[in-house]
């Protein structure tokens, strides 16, 4: 019913700009990974990614309500309960990040830092073969998390009948009063 929904401001502008800039910088870095001709573009994308993550770590403490880490710290119990509720077809509803999404966020922030730091070291000829491997493992790990994250967004959007992609663009969600968890 239309009357049961309520428009809620969920994602502040810096959070949304961060999200899509991170998408752009990671995609650029990933696509230019194998090219020596585009090595400068790849390095620039890596620095951008590192800067964006540094901003997000700060914003996780001083940003808008749903952007703060305290708002979505995923405990194993919360993640388990959320995933169980998905399986049972009665998904717990979170206004902000759900616990599965929160795991993806922390994984991406951590792997992003490792990828950027190891990439810098490789570029400065430090750490040898090990550093190259670490850089590739971190970047491929990020891509794996991105794939799972996108799958999760599609599944959650469908189960909750809300367009999560649109929310990350506009900042607004239409909240229905269903099975609220946070």
């Amino acid at each position: 019913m239309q009357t049961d929904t309520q428009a809620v401001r969920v994602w502040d502008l810096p959070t949304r700009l961060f999200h899509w800039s991170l998408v752009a910088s990671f995609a650029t870095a990933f696509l230019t990974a194998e090219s020596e001709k585009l090595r400068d573009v790849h390095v620039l994308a890596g620095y951008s990614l590192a800067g964006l993550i540094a901003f997000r770590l700060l914003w996780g403490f001083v940003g808008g309500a749903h952007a703060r880490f305290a708002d979505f710290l995923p405990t194993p119990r919360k993640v388990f309960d959320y995933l169980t509720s998905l399986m049972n077809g009665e998904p717990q509803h979170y206004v902000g990040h759900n616990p599965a999404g929160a795991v993806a966020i922390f994984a991406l922030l951590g792997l992003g830092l490792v990828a950027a730091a190891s990439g810098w070291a490789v570029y400065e000829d430090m750490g040898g073969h090990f550093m190259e491997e670490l850089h590739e493992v971190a970047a491929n790990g990020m891509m794996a998390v991105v794939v799972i994250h996108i799958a999760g967004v599609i599944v959650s959007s469908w189960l909750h009948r809300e367009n999560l992609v649109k929310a990350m663009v506009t900042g607004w969600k239409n909240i229905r009063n269903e099975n609220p968890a946070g």
Partner: protein
Amino acid sequence: MMRSTPFMETDMRHISILAALLIAAGGAHAESPRDFLTRFEKEAGAAASPERGARFFTTKQSGEWSCASCHTDKPTQVGRHAKTDKAITALAPVANAERFTDAAKVDKWFRRNCNDTLSRLCTAQEKADVMGWLLSLK
């Protein structure tokens, strides 16, 4: 002492099995530059031509870079990255013992650098020719 001996023997056995596995794993990796020449010639079904390899290496094929753009036309010397200006260790095995000793690395860099210089993968014959030339350098 009597008690600890069987444990120590078990430990020793485990350690030697582990060591054997590590050596086997390392041995599967460690290859010599000649192994790559043999492999590429076998894949190409023809012998390498060092002269053709030299030409291929030092002249632009279809893009704006040749191999020599970074590795110079004297690969026994240190090269210079055409984009970043960073030093690249010598490519010729005679000048750099670390080159062409790891199949994963060799395949990775042929894939990347052939795409940069030719916008395609190199053929086995092209790789055999280049290996033949690099191995002929003194």
